[in-house]
């Protein structure tokens, strides 16, 4: 967090979500400013994914608002996010298995194209220059994440760590202003985890990041600000060092942070 808190990119205020009689979230809020990495943590079932889904328009909260650059989002759906400048990764890899790694990233770059429907249908106009631009941008994104050698391979033939990099390249290739990362470290080896941490830190110069993650090491290493959820309520917020020493957080995690790091 910077000292002169700039206007937040994304702000969620007073979010309340109930599934039937069960209250999944109760009056929860968070905000992400440009160039900051915000971590969202909490034990299983704390409501992290529900909050993520409310923010990205998958579910509609009973109360509360989500605003983007000061404008309240009403009735937004996940497919509106890209045009707003928000990218989201899914908990699984969700790569397109029938497309090469490069094509996967080119789908993510789709909104950078300048040609209209006529160009797409006829091959006239900007069709070719768009294809070239998207391919160059996708290739650059793959290079950035060290996956350029896999450009022509089908996702199913790639090691898991490389698939994760392709998915990350697909999410950021269109230069979003905010990146929502849903458990990006799950299934990664230590080496790949370090690379992921480096990547997330490097995003800070270009975009804000909201991160849901189980791996405490990663969260503590990359986040500027952390929001801790437990039973649908915010129990603590602050920079990593304050969260680490917060007794309420330790209690929520049964007082054993080591075990938490291992359960993700």
């Amino acid at each position, binding site marked *: 967090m910077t000292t002169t808190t700039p206007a937040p990119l994304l702000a969620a205020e007073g979010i309340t979500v109930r599934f039937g009689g069960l209250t999944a979230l109760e009056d929860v809020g968070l905000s992400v400013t440009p160039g900051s990495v915000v971590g969202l943590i909490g034990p299983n079932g704390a409501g992290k994914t529900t909050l993520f889904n409310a923010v990205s328009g998958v579910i509609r909260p009973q109360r509360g608002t989500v605003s983007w650059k000061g404008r309240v989002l009403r009735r937004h759906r996940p497919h509106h996010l890209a045009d707003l400048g928000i990218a989201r990764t899914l908990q699984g890899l969700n790569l397109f298995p029938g497309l090469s790694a490069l*094509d996967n990233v080119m789908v993510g770059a789709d909104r950078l194209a300048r040609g209209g429907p006529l160009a797409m249908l006829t091959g006239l106009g900007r069709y070719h220059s768009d294809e070239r631009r998207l391919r160059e941008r996708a290739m650059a994104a793959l290079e950035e994440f060290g996956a*350029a050698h896999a450009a022509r391979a089908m996702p199913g033939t790639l090691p898991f760590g490389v698939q994760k990099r392709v998915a990350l390249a697909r999410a950021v290739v269109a230069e979003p202003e905010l990146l929502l990362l849903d458990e990006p470290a799950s299934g990664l080896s230590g080496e790949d985890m370090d690379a992921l941490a480096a990547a997330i830190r490097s995003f800070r110069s270009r975009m804000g990041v909201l991160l849901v993650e189980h791996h405490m090491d990663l969260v503590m290493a990359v986040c500027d600000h952390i929001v801790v959820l437990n039973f649908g309520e915010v129990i603590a917020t602050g920079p990593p060092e304050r969260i680490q020493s917060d007794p309420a957080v330790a209690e929520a995690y049964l007082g054993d942070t080591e075990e938490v790091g291992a359960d993700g």
Partner: protein
Amino acid sequence: MVSLSDHESTSRDKQPESTAPAPTVGDRWRALPALVRFPLAALAAFAAILALTSVTGPTGDLRIGSVGYYMLAIAGLQLLIGYSGQISLGHGAFMFIGAYTMALLVLNQPALPLWLNMIITVVLSCTAGVLVGAATARLHGPYLAGATLALAVGLPALTVRYPELLGGSNGLAFSTRGAPASLAGVITNTQWQAAAVWGTTLIGLVVLATISAGRLGRRMRALRDDEAAAGLAGIPVGRTKVIAFVISAGAGGLAGACQAYLLGTATPSSFTVTLSLSLLAALVLGGLGSMWGAFFGAVALVYVEVWGEELAHALALDSNVANNLPIVFFGVLLILVILVWPRGLHGMASSLADLVRRGR
């Protein structure tokens, strides 16, 4: 981010063919703009068809023409099923619309040139595609298949409902102008007809190939593979599905118009559910996911029947057996090919090509 690429270099060294391979002829060809590449390929194919029809007789010309319009219909279906992942069991309905549009135009507006008839047919069948596509946009998998099947069953019944306009179960018969007078003696009428059908087919294929090689095709394949991820990438999922449906309806309609033009008739018995299912079977046989699959499927659709009939004739089989032999052949071929090469005849061809390349 340098650290990211560093430890990758070891795995990269193990697979030297993937590190910046020297551009092959194929790579250079693929780097050409679609607007250059596909028309050039179509011109070469057209020249091949002209050469082929110059050595075949009228029956051969008719068969080659049939491969043409079936290929166009199957290629449209490829875009819908192979690329955008939507199942249609009713593609024959759009061929029906195209064939009757062509027949009615020739009978009622004989002064119109052939190319204008073709354009009117495409516009009409695309309009039908918009109506059906918008109505079925919310249907998935088996529900979409059921809805399109109902269309294929119901639409040809219109001919019996409006016999004055559509000629009842006998359909509409008409005669088209053959080769222009200036070409008399150079090419025969059937050669001209086959060339006209293939010219139309190849123009249609150039459009379909351009679409599927570009952004729109990539959007379709993305939503076929994972709708949620495609939506998050900003792809308009619903709209792209309807567009795929409309384009394939247009291709089906144009194929129907070519069929009516080639045969000089449009009869309801040509557009039964069997036709729709045959198109689907030919697509699977040819191979899903590549426009080449449409070519192999169309060749199989026409020539398995021809060879089956010839075999029955040669063996002097009973007519009950002879009539069903081509269907049995097609079924056995479909089962065998799919068992051995799940990606169809195109998959077989590309794995053979791989073998040859590796053996070199």
